[in-house]
């Protein structure tokens, strides 16, 4: 948020504090909304049931109750666990989510940071959560957690490549790594000369979108790629030994990262905070933009959770085969096709 937004001059440190609090609020609210709408309600409706209904009207206060419950639980650390790593792991995973969300623009002037290497930075920091998961798996001194952590490491590293390659197609078309630039390119662009709806890359980069969605599903360790948390085998995988506040952090990180990645996907493929036909520099877009982006986040998250609640999970080696033998070649072909078409048109 630049100073001109509030029409008062803020010192740099004041801006930083505001932005930090803003990111915190964004992450928590996003996680809370996604948990309520998708985990409590959409999953329940897909399973012919109602979900939580007692805590608050239609169960809206359930998350608050659960947060309160987890906070007041006893802090248990296994006696053979590495205490410092054990304590550090949830924070590392949550950190990754903050860092991703900090680079996503919500409006023409409503952003936390506007980096020139926006999307490059986002893809880079998304791998910090892998470290956190590995830490959790190792530090738990539990064989199941170790198995889960190792599986997660292999899976997350394998699926970063298709994600990066899918984004390359977008970057080629937009011509910039800057997130605001990508939004502008989609709003102002044309599809083969037709400029009515701009150029949302979901239409022209549909292969890239598909690859990005699949890789996103794997990066978020959601079914069908949730081997690391395979509930029926490893209880909770790397999260098994975590209880109370630490588990709450993992939980928030899981859903906030769904939101963060959906925000990135919405920005890259659905047009971000802009809608075709809207004035991109107007001041009111700083209010309308976040709302538009939220709607798009919900759309992408809906697809993510829809797939999660429907499919069984892949086995680890099948997962790796899918990444290396199918997604990466496909994304390379996608890049080649994008380059050819970009040059030809």
């Amino acid at each position, binding site marked *: 948020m630049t100073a001109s937004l509030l029409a008062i001059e803020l010192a740099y440190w004041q801006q930083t504090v505001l932005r930090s609090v803003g990111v915190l609020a964004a992450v928590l609210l996003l996680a809370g909304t996604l948990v309520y709408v998708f985990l409590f309600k959409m999953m329940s409706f897909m399973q012919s049931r109602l979900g939580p209904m007692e805590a608050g009207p239609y169960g809206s206060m359930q998350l608050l109750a659960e947060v309160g419950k987890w906070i007041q639980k006893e802090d248990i650390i296994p006696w053979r666990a590495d205490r410092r790593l054990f304590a550090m792991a949830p924070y590392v995973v949550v950190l990754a989510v903050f860092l991703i969300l900090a680079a996503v623009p919500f409006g023409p002037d409503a952003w936390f940071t506007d980096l020139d290497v926006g999307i490059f930075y986002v893809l880079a920091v998304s791998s910090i959560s892998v470290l956190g998961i590995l830490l959790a798996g190792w530090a738990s001194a539990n064989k199941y957690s170790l198995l889960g952590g190792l599986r997660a490491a292999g899976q997350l590293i394998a699926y970063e490549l298709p994600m990066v390659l899918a984004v390359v197609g977008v970057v080629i078309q937009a011509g910039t790594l800057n997130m605001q630039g990508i939004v502008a390119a989609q709003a102002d662009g044309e599809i083969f000369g037709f400029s009515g709806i701009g150029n949302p890359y979901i239409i022209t980069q549909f292969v890239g979108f598909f690859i990005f969605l699949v890789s996103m599903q794997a990066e978020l360790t959601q079914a069908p790629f949730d081997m690391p948390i395979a509930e029926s085998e490893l209880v909770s995988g790397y999260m098994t030994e975590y209880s109370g506040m630490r588990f709450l952090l993992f939980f928030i990180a899981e859903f906030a990262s769904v939101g963060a990645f959906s925000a990135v996907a919405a920005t890259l493929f659905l047009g971000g905070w802009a809608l075709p036909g809207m004035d991109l520099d107007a001041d009111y877009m700083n209010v309308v933009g976040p709302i538009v982006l939220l709607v798009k986040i919900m759309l992408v998250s809906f697809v993510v959770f829809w797939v999660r609640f429907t*499919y*069984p999970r892949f086995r680890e080696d099948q997962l790796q085969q899918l990444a290396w033998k199918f997604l990466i070649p496909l994304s390379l072909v996608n890049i080649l096709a994008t380059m050819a078409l970009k040059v030809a048109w």
Partner: protein
Amino acid sequence: MTVTERQQLAYVDAQAAEGRVNVELETDEGMVINLGPQHPATHGTLRITAKLDGEQVVWADVVPGYMHRGYEKLTEVRTYPQITTLVNRIDWLGSFANEVPFILAAERLMEIEAPPRARHIRTILFEMARIANIVLFLGDLGVQLGAVTPAFYAFRDREHVLDQIEAVTGGRFHPNFDRIGGLRDDLPKGWVADTKAVMARIRDFCDEVEALLFGNEIFQARTRGVGVIPPEVALSYGLTGANLRATGVDWDLRRDGDVGLAHREVDWRVWTHPDGDSFARCWVRLQETREATGIVDQLCDGLPGGPIMAKVPRIIKVPAGEAYVATENPLGVTGYYLVSKGDLGPFRVKIRSASFSNVSIVPWLLRGVYVPDIITILASLYFILGDIDR
């Protein structure tokens, strides 16, 4: 493995099982994990010790017995009606099916035949027990493999079957309805029509599960070729039920046995599958559920009139003798070997439970499989702890 190493591991197992410090023996070959008695994957308190090399199983062993309730000892000090109610709880999901072979064995010793109406209703409830059991298996299959949604559909549609069983017998899970000579009571008015509607719902559920699970490429990738059992091995381990039919052996006691149920009077088929892998086992059970709904429909249509109970004395004393009756229960072949000395209760009852034999193949089957495949195999073999441990 050398003998001493096996003894070492057995000692460690015994120590850990007594609840003392869980000593892990880290050998060079691999890590020993415990799919312990409390685990989401095992349907109850079954313990599987597996030695892993990375993600592959080198050696596995099954440790049952955590749920042993002493049924065979209990039957020595109970009367026949009391035993009928107790054996409901052996295979608690298809509970009416447990009563049937026991009652049939007693009827064989008494040389009584239940009237045709009782036979038909017995068969209807027997098949409904099969449906209730296998529908839950189909739901649980999804959960074991990661798909959470089919489980809820299974419970939702199974409720209707349980409602029908409750409308007749008074109990959803433990009917306690079979009696020597017939059944306890007759059907209430309107039951037949309601049951046929419920069977239609179960068929819809089977279609839903087929679309959601069986047609799913991920499910097929997880289950095809996993846990293949050749038919000779299956027969030598005593596998029965859908597990055996999924290896290609065409054997079903409902058609091939000669017990007092009404299966011979209706039109149905036995489903087999040549592959013998996990997909085959699950698929055979799905088809059997559909077939069972057809059997129930036909039996409901052709329900004969008549008494519900043969002429039996008030106080039943089964004459001395021995009889073994086995039926094709939802889990496999369940048999009761009844030894009577002419008292109010039996002298000895030996229960041949299907899951105990089905689970005996697990050590052979789990060699060389990956850890996730352990879950797939256990889920597809389908056992119920009450049936293993009795």
